[in-house]
């Protein structure tokens, strides 16, 4: 096994995801030998839940008593904004990370973008790993170890019935083939046929970054959480033009229900309606528009690839039940029950997990 510390880093367009394996089986002997730097990093990460102004440890996601490379320990999940990368590298340099002679495995676009900074500012050589390899590997690994005795994967039963809709565990024991939809700032869609056999089917630039970016412009909000909070109080039907707004009810000739959105933001063509909507309505409409579009593209990909299980991951779905239910609903409704939307508890951390697993290979 490689020397501690064990990190996996995924530097995305908006967020940096960091997983940290905290060994819990450290012998007294090891404790004695553990250099001060390493100890201080371990203490710093495990004794805090927030780092700097925007770094957060998702305590609820922590995987306990995990066995990795014959070591037992806890896996911690930490995230912070990508624009804090320079501060992060600076901290690594201050804590003399480089003196630990460890390898730092990183994936995501930022592994390339910040490689030079890591080298010059932090005296650290990054081991860059392919982001899709890491993603697929992370998903399959976390699903296989489970979530502290619970299922990692879940779905929504009765997604088309608001009253009876509920979140239920899903057994992804035999996962192939599956369509993996990763919604970060943008969206990547992968068809996974086996552990080592997958392909990127397509992607779209209308992703989490689009939702958040448009919300900032439309509502003046400044955090993703704020945008989601606003969306949860809004009504998108004031903003969108529905089928029933045009046809008075269902459009039977095309089999379109009256509630379906005919034109996203379509009501905003009218000055009066622009003046009567709230910021919350606009945030909700943005969320619904982006989510439905992803659902639609995912559905078409699933049909083209002849796959009926679609797993949605990525940090867009963090604390975003509205989107998850909408995706579950849309997939079920438009495929007449043929397609199933699945979700994973560790949403956006799979790339970082894959990077950590890559580190363990290298030994």
């Amino acid at each position, binding site marked *: 096994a490689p020397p501690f510390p064990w990190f996996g880093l995924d530097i995305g367009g908006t967020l940096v995801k960091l997983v940290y394996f905290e060994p819990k089986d450290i012998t007294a002997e090891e404790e004695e030998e553990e250099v001060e730097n390493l100890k201080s990093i371990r203490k710093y990460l495990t004794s805090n839940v927030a780092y700097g102004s925007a770094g957060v440890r998702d305590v609820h996601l922590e995987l306990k008593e995990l066995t990795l490379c014959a070591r037992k320990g806890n896996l911690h999940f930490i995230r912070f904004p990508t624009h804090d990368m320079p501060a992060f590298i600076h901290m690594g340099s201050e804590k003399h990370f480089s003196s630990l002679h460890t390898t730092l495995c990183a994936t995501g676009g930022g592994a390339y973008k910040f490689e030079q900074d890591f080298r010059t500012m932090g005296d650290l050589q990054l081991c860059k790993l392919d982001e899709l390899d890491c993603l697929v590997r992370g998903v399959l690994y976390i699903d296989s170890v489970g979530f502290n005795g619970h299922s990692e994967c879940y779905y929504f039963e009765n997604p088309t019935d608001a009253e009876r809709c509920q979140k239920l565990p899903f057994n992804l024991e035999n996962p192939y083939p599956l369509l993996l939809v990763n919604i970060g700032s943008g969206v990547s869609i992968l068809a996974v046929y086996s552990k080592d056999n997958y392909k990127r089917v397509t992607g779209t630039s209308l992703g989490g970054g689009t939702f958040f970016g448009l919300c*900032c412009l439309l509502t003046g909000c400044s955090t993703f959480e704020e945008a989601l909070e606003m969306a949860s109080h809004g009504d998108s039907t004031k903003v969108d033009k529905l089928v029933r707004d045009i046809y008075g009810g269902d459009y039977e000739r*095309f089999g379109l229900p009256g509630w379906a959105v005919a034109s996203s933001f379509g009501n905003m063509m009218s*000055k009066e309606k622009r003046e009567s909507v709230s910021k919350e309505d606009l945030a909700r409409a943005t969320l619904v528009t982006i989510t439905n579009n992803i659902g639609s593209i995912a559905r078409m990909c699933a049909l083209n690839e002849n796959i009926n299980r679609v797993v949605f991951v990525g940090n867009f779905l963090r604390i975003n039940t509205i989107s998850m239910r909408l995706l579950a609903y849309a997939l079920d409704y438009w495929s007449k029950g043929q397609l199933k939307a699945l979700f994973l508890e560790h949403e956006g951390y799979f790339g970082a997990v894959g990077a950590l697993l890559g580190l363990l290979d290298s030994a």
Partner: protein
Amino acid sequence: MAERGGRGAHGSLDKSITLPPHEIFRNLENAKRFAIDIGGSLTKLAYYSTVQHKVARVRSFDHSGKDLEHEPLYEITVQEEITARLHFIKFENTYIETCLDFIKDHLVNTETKVIKATGGVFAYQKDSDTEFRFQTNHPNIFPYLLVNIGSGVSIVKVETEDKFEWIGGSSIGGGTFWGLGALLTKTKKFDELLQLASKGQHTNVDMLVKDVYGGAYQTLGLSGNLIASSFGKSTTADKEFSKEDMAKSLLHMISNDIGQLACLYAKLHNLDKIYFGGFFIRGHPVTMRTITYSINFFSKGEVQALFLRHEGYLGAIGAFLKGAEQDNPNQYSWGENYAGSSGLMSTSPDVFPMQRTRSGTFDMFEMDRLERPLVNLPLLKDPSTYIPDTVDLTDDAMARKYWLTCFEEALDGVAKRAAASQPDSVDAPERAEKFRHKYWNKLQTLRQQPFAYGTLTVRSLLDTREHCLNEFNFPDPYSKVKQKENGIALKCFQSVIESLDSLGWEERQFALVKGLLAGNVFDWGAKAVSDQWLERLKGPPHKCALIFADNSGIDIILGVFPFVRELLSRGTEVILACNSGPALNDVTYSESLIVTERIAAMDPVIQSALREEKLMLVQTGSSSPCLDLSRLDKGLAVLVRERATDLVIIEGMGRAIHTNYYAALNCESLKLAVIKNSWLADRLGGKIFSVIFKYEVPCK
């Protein structure tokens, strides 16, 4: 003349309703049938009207006992004729009340009827001098995907003319661009949003692959300029973004999304052609470009994005089709009236503000009914690949400049001649000036936007001029000139025949070809070319020759007729095809009837050939100085087939050079013309007044 409208590029859209309604809803008084389609944001209407306009007719005098030396050959009269026209108009719903009021006041009665129409289809091309590549009407367009981008997006799979199915859609469409764009930029109008977008930089708002990967994206085989996340850079509350940049980013986002979904549907249904329509496209090169880019990107070039020049009328035409079936649509053909249709808009909206202002808000499309069905010449080698025009001026900037200048320089003369052709009409000079102004404006539009009316060719320039002349009641400015020249030439006919008959066989063959080429300018440098023809003439006679005649006067009487006579004497039957309607000094079918009658009176060979139906006169169905072999009168096509025609002779610059120079037939053909234009002669590698003599034999 762009400044004539006196409007600036900005803030003028609201005023476009001030365009006199009668210029938009043309000929409403005579509207017989009416269809309206009120969509989410645009209203489309279609009506059928009857148009009364002047036509020139010729009528033979009864010459018995008259002094043939001093009387004109025939009488020219101008009559009123009534023909049918289809009008299609689109406008933003904002104007609906004003428009409907106007219509109510002018409309007499309404009903719906069956109409069959086809529009020009084209594909958008990036990285090319031509931005649009037009397709001729392809016989095999099915199956295809029809993506209508209105407020939302509808995706329809079209398998045959009447078998189609709605297979999907998307809520992110034109309404999203408009609605979201209005919120983001406080700009209310769709056209203004597009204008903003065309000035913006989306890279200031979008997160690109290179923003995520830094400078190292090349190592991944990714293009750094790909958008990773639309609006991904606006995830901050403390930065201002320009309206232009946001509009551009929005345009890219929506176009890419629609293109991607369209490709996914095309793939699922195994289709490789996608037609785009709807107001989002509506002749907007900006959106056509982004959609085409998206289709190319997502399909990796496997799917073709196509647009209709008069897109957005599908619903209106469909509404007509759904009406009562009282007419048999197969009895007619329809041709676009270039004088009444508005053009496509420019990729750079500021270039020609007046034209933009007008067609941005109101778009007009008119089609005139041609009273006889038009079909392919049965002898065309491959009708699906036949393109009449020799040079695509949308493609060839140098040729375009040259020809536009040519037409500009000739315009004053044409207007003068038009006025002079009606000396008894008080308002002729005024109408001639209106004609001059209208055609001049069309030429200026074409300078800025060569694709405005479809593929730009010498033929379309000539045809547009004819349409504009007709528009102002100059049905046949050359009628008197032609009358005079026909009279003069007829007087020489007998002596020309006598001198030809006195020549030896081989000499006569040369002289006949020389006559066809209007002998006075013949350059014997072409001698070598005609050797092959001469050899052919020594062989067995042709079964039947089809001749497309060119000019009145010397050309038809002293050139074509002696040649016809020679063919007849070889035992070859002759079909002589002349234009149905007037164009320049070209001989019309009705003039040819009179001229032939007079020649027959002098020449027993012609007389007996007419009687025995070995010489047949037909009309082409065209009123153009050029020739489209895929749109010919059905009667001509039937006769060509019946008589087993095995030789086609096409003469004159318009028919043999501007068009059909490269036309491939599956029988022998002669293409002859004198290059009366030094620039063109230069281009073809010859001298002015040199001769094109193309004798072609199809490869077996």
